[in-house]
């Protein structure tokens, strides 16, 4: 059977099989975190009702399965997570999955914008710096990269706000759209873009610096390889050499990093979304910590982890397609 499957499919299936234990471990991890946190669902429920007598609490515990052995509880929890049932949020008075889905779009939009800008600008600047290594241009780009890398996103957010909202008044200080303006069509799209400019800039700069440094090193390494020298000796023009011969291979380590970085960017969105009051998962995570809404927090962790697993899976497939040295089957 396997003989007739295309190698990329075999590779995809094998890679998928590796992801399953990771997802199971994350489920166990969130369960442990929930158990470590002070108070359980029933405590929250009883607190919500303003207190109850011991018999009633015991009955509630039995109803929620909290009197069962820990293995049974873990199994039930994993079954629920697998069907994206994260329990009830006592802060929002809604199922956690509903709360998460309302917020997911904003975060994905912010991340897609930040990562694509960081990635394209990072590899472009990195390639330029590498081709003019040790020149003034390279020095300038490298110094900027180091400074961007050292600037915390929350500080950058405040400085952008200070310049572009407070002093110049060009951009809105927060939110995802102008409240009570009821824009439609392209006006609405433009309004959302204006609200996303500063958060995107604040979130992308540090990753831009990351890709820049990696790309510079990678291009410099590839440019020294024999096959590039051969192509040059055969008369390939520098521009063609860069795009067809060097970039293609220099991009490989950068693409791997893109998948790994996805989870850090999700973490970074907490600070940026909180500062710019963007109604996304990051802001929700912060509010859940402050309000001790553990069910919602665990839902966010699990959802983020699934997103990261999927993105890593896709980057690995992309990598396998791009790098012919990888044995697929």
């Amino acid at each position, binding site marked *: 059977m396997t003989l007739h499957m295309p190698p990329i499919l075999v590779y995809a299936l094998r890679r998928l099989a590796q992801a399953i234990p990771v997802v199971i471990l994350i489920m166990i991890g969130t369960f442990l975190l929930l158990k470590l946190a002070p108070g359980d669902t029933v405590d929250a429920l009883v607190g919500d009702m303003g207190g109850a007598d011991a018999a009633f609490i015991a009955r509630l515990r039995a109803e929620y399965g909290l009197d069962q052995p820990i293995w049974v509880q873990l199994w039930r929890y994993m079954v629920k997570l697998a069907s994206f049932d994260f329990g009830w949020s006592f802060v929002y008075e809604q199922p956690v999955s509903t709360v998460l889905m309302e917020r997911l779009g904003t975060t994905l939009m912010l991340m897609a914008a930040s990562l694509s800008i960081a990635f394209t600008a990072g590899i472009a600047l990195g390639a330029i710096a590498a081709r003019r290594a040790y020149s003034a241009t390279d020095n300038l780009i490298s110094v900027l990269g*180091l400074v961007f890398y050292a*600037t915390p996103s929350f*500080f950058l957010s405040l400085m952008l706000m200070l310049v572009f909202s407070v002093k110049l008044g060009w951009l809105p200080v927060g939110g995802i759209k102008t409240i009570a303006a009821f824009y439609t069509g392209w006006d609405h799209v433009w309004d959302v873009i204006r609200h996303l400019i500063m958060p995107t800039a604040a979130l992308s700069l540090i990753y831009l610096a990351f890709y820049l440094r990696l790309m510079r090193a990678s291009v410099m390494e590839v440019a020294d390889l024999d096959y590039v020298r051969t192509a040059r000796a055969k008369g390939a023009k520098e521009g063609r050499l860069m795009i067809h011969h060097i970039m293609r291979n220099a991009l490989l380590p950068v693409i791997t990093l893109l998948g790994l970085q996805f989870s850090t960017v999700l973490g970074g969105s907490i600070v940026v979304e909180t500062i710019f009051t963007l109604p996304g998962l990051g802001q929700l995570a912060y509010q859940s910590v402050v309000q001790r809404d553990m069910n919602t927090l665990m839902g966010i*962790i699990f959802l983020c982890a699934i997103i990261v697993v999927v993105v890593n899976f896709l980057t690995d497939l992309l990598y396998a397609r791009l790098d012919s040295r990888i044995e697929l089957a």
Partner: protein
Amino acid sequence: MTLADTEIAPPEPPRYVMFWRRYKRNRAAVLGLVLFAVVVLMALSAGLIEPGDPLRRAGDPLTPPFVNWATPLGTDQLGRDVLAGVFYGARISLLIGVVATLVAIVIGVVIGALAGYFGGWVDDVLMRITEAFQTIPNFVLLLTLVAIMGSKIEWITLAIGIVSWTAPARMVRAEFMSLRNREFVDAARNLGVSNTSIIFREILPNAMPPIVVYASVIMALSILMESALAFLALGDPNYASWGNMIGQGRAVLRSAPYCAVIPGIAIILTVLSFSLLGEGLNDALNPRQKK
């Protein structure tokens, strides 16, 4: 051909001299070392040279910088001395950075060494655990741990270490996998040296250089994480922290931007010093590596 050519070469200078020669070749790294020394001095002298409690009222609220010599960098909205905050903030940042990095390196070395040395199912299990940790966004996990354990400074430091060990673990594992079948390890094994001794006495010292370089990255990231926590008001309220100062400065951003800008510059320079330090260490410890 002169007589001098046949003479025996002078003995190589001691290792630390060689180290410093290689290190100082990178001028940016020397700048990093100077910046680092300044931060360390500020951390050590906090409370000695610059008197005053950073959390106590030192003058009129919102005194701008360079106006009153009792508070050279001005005061915030509660009249707290900004300069004192910067000095004490350096102490907290370095303390949390160093301890969290140690925690991360110790966990990373143990897990990476076991996985890389034994391979097989041990490697499989440990690597799946590492992947699971890597999959959960660091900062989300950090917030969760702080929500569970509380905002005491010890717990925050431990939590930062717990979310930072995966990268060193992978590096140590890779080093161990390439070193475990070398002749010196075989020789030790044939002499009957125990696994524990081989791991810690034979292989680990050879695997350390890249880890030492990477420690500077973890330091920088730990300091950034701590400041972000403090900015969000989830840090330990009993200590002055740069992140917290910026968070408070946000309220007066319009009228007194210096309250946020000064500690912000302190963070940037500190993190920058670690990045440069790391590059210098890399040049000095891995001299054969291509630049």
